[in-house]
């Protein structure tokens, strides 16, 4: 049997708007993934540690405050340092179009701004995840 995809849904930073994160967590679970939700106000340190501890294949960030660029830069740097940069990172939230190229540049390809359908993001994750052993 195929191993289930394990995904960490994380709310980094101070923003507390978690409707999106919780909705997506339920959709991912219904799509057959194992979902771990961090809860609010997570530091990058906490997120990378949880990712290692839980042995996840994917980290999904939800950011609504507009601070996605500084937060993602910090995460990618930390992941490299911890040698877990093979984990797929995806992001959802209030992401203006003009911020997509800089996000791609720092290595985030799965970008799902508000309004993206469940099907689309789930398909993308399934196609792009490299399951870790």
């Amino acid at each position, binding site marked *: 049997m195929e191993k289930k995809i394990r995904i960490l849904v994380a709310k980094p930073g*101070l*923003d507390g708007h978690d409707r999106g994160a919780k909705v997506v*967590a339920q959709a991912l679970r219904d799509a057959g993934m194992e979902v771990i939700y961090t809860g609010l106000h997570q530091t990058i340190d906490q997120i990378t540690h949880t990712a290692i501890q839980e042995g996840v294949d994917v980290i999904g960030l939800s950011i609504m405050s*507009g601070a996605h660029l500084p937060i993602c830069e910090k995460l990618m740097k930390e992941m490299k340092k911890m040698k877990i940069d093979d984990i797929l990172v995806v992001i959802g939230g209030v992401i203006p179009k003009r911020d997509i190229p800089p996000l791609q540049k720092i290595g985030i390809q799965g970008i799902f701004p508000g*309004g993206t359908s*469940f099907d689309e993001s789930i398909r993308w994750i399934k196609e792009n995840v490299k399951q870790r052993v």
Partner: protein
Amino acid sequence: MGVAKYIKNEKDEVRDVTLQSGIHVKPLYTKKDLEAIGFDPDKDLALPGEYPYTRGIHPLGYRSREWTTRQYTGFGAPKETNERFKLMISHGQTGLNVAFDLPTQMGLDSDDPLAEGEVGRVGMAVDSLRDFEVAFQGIPLDRIGAGLTINAVASIMLAMFQATAEKYGFKKDQVSATPQNDILKEMIGRGAWIFPVKPAVRLIGDTIEYSMKELPRTNPVSVCGYHIRESGCSPVQEIAYAFQIANTYIEEVLRRGHHIDDFVRGFTFNLNVFGNLWEQVAKFRAARKLWAKNLKERYGAKDNRSLLLRGIFGGGGYGMTKAQPENNIIRGAYYALAAALGGAQTTALCSFDEAYTIPTPRAALLSLRTFQILMEEIGLRDTVDPLAGSYFIETLTKQMEERIVEEMKRVDEMGGMIKAVETGYVQKEVARQAYEFEKGVQKGELIKVGVNKYTEGEEMEVELHEYRLGSAEEQVQRLREVKRERDNRKVSQLLKDLESAARAEKNVMPYLLECCKAYATLGEMTKVFKGAYGEFKEPSIF
């Protein structure tokens, strides 16, 4: 529940309508519906300004007084926010509604490592009294009330507001602040919580008790069904949860030996306006009636002024869409109409570009003009509660009322709102419904124009509010300056006094006021509270 459903047949006839609150709407309403539901115009309605206030809290509605308009405003450094306040007032806005950045909402100073990247981003940055002095400089605080959208540290911000007003020569009984100050809804829906439930509720009790004597024109708490609805619940639950939250705060003050009529007039509500027009109007009418009954029957309020549900009905954020953003201008107008037909005392609207970022001045002005057109041009001030007596609206108002009562009972059976939040019961219910709503939209059961129907057309680029990177550095500089210039010995003594008061469960407000006046920082005061109270841990709901 979760999402409104419209079922059509192959000829595009609407066969069945279910509102988000789960109520089925019939194709036709007649006198018989009112009879069937036991509608009694004397008991259920009476006159506007009379118990049970279904028709409004003022006898003449908007004839005697237009609504107060309060667009949510604030960004960057206090000086930029001050300029925007003045701009909105010059355009005819009659109140303020201050947006704070996330570090401020979380009680962190701008130089805290956790604040990095967030200073001044979604609201104004505040570290000390110096920032409030700049933000409110030149604002006639005896005329313009200030809503302060702050919760976990509302006690600190209310003290800071009082210190600012004093500094500018206003008397305590002249100024009116409305701190949001509703921590339970933060734990359910908006996430800006710091301290555990019980001490957090005690802090709210402190602000209410303090305002009774010291700040008589202040509304110390604005209970927000709004954000719970934004997070996914139905309009019925929005009211039921808001009332049960309000009851929790009421009981905290009653516990201290005060009489309900001495403080409950300071309660206001913040309620949402998006979705089905009729459902929202019926919701506001039912809510006014139930709030009056709640106070009279549950708490024995005697003074009629205690029974009035006052509030800001507005926003509508979750109804707005990122797709085809100009459509939000039109949506906003209908949401404002719902607020007006529902008898709002105060209103505000999410601007059409807010699905992207905080509004540009042009977008904020459009929202303000929407209110002005409603009141000045199309007749909303003509007569009070114009939909009263409608077979449909009165039936729906009764149905909403029944369902709100049932939902409130469910929370009572759980042991009250504190329990319901500590165990995650409400959070779970809200998240479940948010998921149902999203599935309904993605399946096309609920039409959102431009999102799942009529999606063709050119993509529009909105002009975005620019986040100024330099303003964070300037803010940190100003904080350093304040710390250099103030009497640091005095500050540490005052912080110690605050700590003893917090640990002894005394009312902390007088201590906070002294700390603020001595330019203690928000971060310093919050740290004292964290030491004394600890921090909230989210219940796991998955």
